[in-house]
């Protein structure tokens, strides 16, 4: 029954406290600046603005 529910969540978006944005599941990642479109299944996106590997987290948030 659940599988037929088309409104079932397709992905899990997790905001890690003082950390990145973790996204897992069925999603398409479009990066407008770097012009890429992928379906990675799991990503960690930078939320602090300081990553050297944007849009992805490189753990720069841990260094002040």
């Amino acid at each position, binding site marked *: 029954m659940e599988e037929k529910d*088309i*409104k*079932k*969540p*397709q*992905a*899990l*978006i*997790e*905001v890690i*406290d003082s950390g990145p*944005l973790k*996204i897992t*599941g*069925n*999603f*398409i*990642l*479009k*990066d*407008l*600046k*770097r012009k890429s479109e992928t*379906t990675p299944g799991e*990503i960690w*996106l*930078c*939320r*602090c*603005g*300081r*990553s050297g590997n*944007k*849009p992805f987290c490189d753990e720069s948030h841990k260094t002040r």
Partner: protein
Amino acid sequence: MERDKSLSDERKYSNDEITVYWKPVACVHASYCYRELIEVFDPSRRPWVDMKGAPTEKIIEIVNLCPTEALTWKWNDDERNRDVRSDQTNHVKFRRPELINQDLSSIQENPVSVKVMTDGPVVIKGSFTLAYSGNKKEVSDSLVSICRCGSSDHEPFCDGKHKKIGFTG
């Protein structure tokens, strides 16, 4: 940050052919409008929309990029609004849900869209579970805009601050 507090209302901006409607409360700061057409949509100007800044056709094109109903438009001549196509994101569409039912059903079956905006937030659209600060909620056909610059006053959500601090990334 200078913000318009009267969030419940709707502003209108017209030229001879169309009226653009602006609903501040619906904006997620995806920033397509000013990035694509600063001549018309300039957040640092008051009023921020100048309908003389570009031809009608161009204004429609950019308003249609808005992922929310913050910016919508309609023809001043109501007769023309009857011919609106179902794929048009305009004022009429948001008031006639039957025009988007088809689109919605396909969205529900589709993967979640995660869009990293140029020098802006990450805009997430679709049916997903959102977990933050101990909260966990399931949403369907929804849209959230998550801050990437680290300076929002409404973390984890975008409040438009990236533009003020000159965030790039």
